[in-house]
């Protein structure tokens, strides 16, 4: 009976504990309004006060989003280390992958063209010398024919 009761209590408490955010994680995701570094890197009085508020709200098991929303309501969106995924802020999230994609495309095209040029060169240059101009080749044939004759 005691075991069943303990199990029931554990089942109730464990998900609740798991839902509580980690204060240290939050401190790395929020900016100190006076020194503009993340809270975990700041010992400014304003940062200390916000950290204390975060610890208090975590102890009350407020959700991460709730705590962030409360701080944004007081300090504005600049308190978030990562900009929100809405409106003009999307540009911050979209530009880096777009840049990487563009760079990858440019590199792929360059590599493809370079390897194709090398292939063509290999076909035309089996004896290690650059191919002759057709006109020059005809002229050379004529000269050799005259010499042979």
């Amino acid at each position, binding site marked *: 009976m005691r075991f069943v009761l303990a199990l029931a209590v554990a089942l109730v408490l464990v998900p609740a504990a798991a839902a509580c955010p980690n204060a240290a994680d939050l401190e790395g995701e929020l900016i100190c*309004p006076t020194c503009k570094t993340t809270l975990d890197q700041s010992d400014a009085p*304003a940062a200390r*006060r*916000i950290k204390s508020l975060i610890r208090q709200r975590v102890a009350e098991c407020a959700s991460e989003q709730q705590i962030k929303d409360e701080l944004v309501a*007081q300090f*504005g969106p*600049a*308190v978030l280390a990562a900009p929100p995924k809405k409106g003009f802020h999307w540009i911050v999230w979209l530009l880096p992958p777009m840049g990487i994609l563009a760079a990858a495309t440019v590199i792929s095209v360059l590599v493809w063209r370079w390897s194709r040029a090398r292939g063509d060169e290999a076909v035309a240059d089996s004896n290690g010398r650059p191919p002759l101009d057709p006109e020059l080749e005809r002229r050379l044939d004529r000269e050799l024919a005259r010499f042979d004759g």
Partner: protein
Amino acid sequence: MAGRLKVAAQVVALALVAGLFALLVWKVATQEEGAAPKLGRGETPAAPAFHLDRLDRPGKLSLAAYRGRPVVLNFWASWCVPCKQEAPLLESVWRRYRDRGLVVLGVDINDLRGDARRFARQNKMSYPLVYDGPGKTTTQYGLTGVPETFFVARSGKLVCDRVEAGVHLEGNKERFEDCVEEVLGA
């Protein structure tokens, strides 16, 4: 075809670099200089306007509401120790000169609203208070910290140099009182 593609790519790359450079130049050229450096150069710039939530009662308050009256504009925060120490002097100046039209206006910056209200209650601050949690006024006024005190003449222009650190401090108190007299007469 490949040559034309290459030229187009070069043009796009150049346009991109030129665009980014133009953006940088624009940002630097239009960057707002705070009021404090102008005051330091002996200029009398217009006091930057603001429209903020009141801390001492519901509603909003604009600096423009006090046009025609001299204003002692004090920036403070509840986590700032000198702000607590200078509060009684600001309160006494407000009580002494309000009959002559002087307004002491406290702007709470980078602070938690609840903490600021508690601070105002504990320090018996009866003058008007506004709340600027995000600290937008810090850039407009060019603050380097808190507390800082500015003086706004009836014309809406900043006069006298700002007082950095607590107005109660040795060396600041006399200058603060001189500036209060100056703004009352301006």
